[in-house]
């Protein structure tokens, strides 16, 4: 056993608020260096608490443990999405657990609504995590940009989508679409000019 759980007695009396700074540092260490020791500290604090929550919610030991496992797996695998400026570690971990619980219950109750927790609370989506936080004015601008993007000519749209949304390099796009690099560059330039023009017209 490489990492044991240091289940210190003191753990059970420390409130989430009181160890937020410490836990934030551990999560950052997981994000940056896959630090198992730091993760073990986060796990030993939160897993038993999540288990209590999950037992109350699911009323069944096996489901409760599944909820704990899914939640803590997300913390381990997606630690880079944690942002201490947006909320405390306990809030972040709670929202992950709440989302998983929502989806588990939907499945158990066989609900037919075509909605999952990420649609309601985009906690773990890199794309939309910020959309929820931006002010109303910025949201409108984002929506307008989405609309402007839709109105680009298809060829320009494909290039912009590959570069700005999929994060590909201009060379990768050129290879993929089998077009010269110069064409990718000129389409990008034209599309950006066009978007800029539309934004100016809008004001």
């Amino acid at each position, binding site marked *: 056993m490489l990492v044991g759980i240091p289940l210190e007695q003191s753990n059970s009396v420390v409130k989430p608020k009181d160890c937020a700074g410490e836990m934030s540092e551990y999560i950052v260490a997981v994000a940056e260096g896959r630090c198992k020791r730091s993760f073990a500290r986060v796990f030993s604090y939160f897993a038993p608490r999540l288990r209590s929550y999950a037992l109350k919610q699911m009323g069944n030991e096996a489901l409760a443990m599944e909820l704990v496992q899914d939640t803590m797996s997300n913390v381990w695998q997606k630690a880079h999405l944690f942002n201490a400026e947006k909320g405390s570690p306990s809030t972040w971990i709670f929202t992950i657990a709440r989302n998983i619980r929502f989806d588990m219950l939907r499945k158990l109750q066989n609900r037919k*609504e075509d*909605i999952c927790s990420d649609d309601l609370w985009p906690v773990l989506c890199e794309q939309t995590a910020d959309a929820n936080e931006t002010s109303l004015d910025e949201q409108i601008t984002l929506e307008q940009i*989405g609309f402007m993007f839709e109105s680009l000519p298809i060829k320009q749209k494909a290039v912009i989508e590959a570069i700005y949304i999929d994060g590909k390099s201009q060379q990768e796009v050129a290879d993929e679409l089998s077009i010269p690099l110069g064409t990718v560059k000129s389409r990008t330039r034209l599309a950006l000019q066009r978007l800029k023009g539309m934004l100016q017209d809008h004001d």
Partner: protein
Amino acid sequence: MTKFHPAPEQLKQFAQGALSPVEAIMISAHCDMCARCQHVVKTETAQQANHVLSDSPSNYTEHIRQDLDSMLASITQLPKARPFRSSRIPPSTIELDGRRFSVPRTLRKFIPTMGNWSGLVGRLWQAPVDIGASGAANFIYMGPGGGVPEHTHRGFEFTLVIDGEFDDGINHYAAGDFIAMDEEHTHTPRSDDPHGCLVFSVLDQPLHFTSGIARLLNPFSHVFFR
């Protein structure tokens, strides 16, 4: 300016994840348009987290400790998640008569399921949306001076104003407003906005028309219900 918000209890239950999916969709869409309720939900979520995770574990047996120990060991074997990349931007607007309306984030995923606009009585247009649930979800557009005859509800009706303004004889609503109606409410929605009014509405039972000649519509009220 948004004046009508979900009840504090609804926002709290939304933060807890305790609402039904349909109600959660409507509250979430309202929050997309309402900075005030976004803030309330954020605060509620932090409080919930603190409350729920403050419970210090009791009846902690050796067996559970071992389970958690092996869970920890198996989790740390997992690789880091690959960055999530969406391959395309979902549509964010809908169109009616050459006008484009921006749709709140939560409702965008349903845009591809939207049916055609159909004209109903009273300068009223409706396009059904499949949210996968029983009941009916529609984008409803009231043209200037158009509206729905006086009616009551047999179940719940949640409405979110997306664009423009309307009046229902009880209140005057504007973009972002959230309206919950049930058997207790009788109203007559009508828009005198020169640009009309677009709303998104979910119903679990057909409307029941309550006055005048519109009562003749009752046998056909499923028209207002998918």
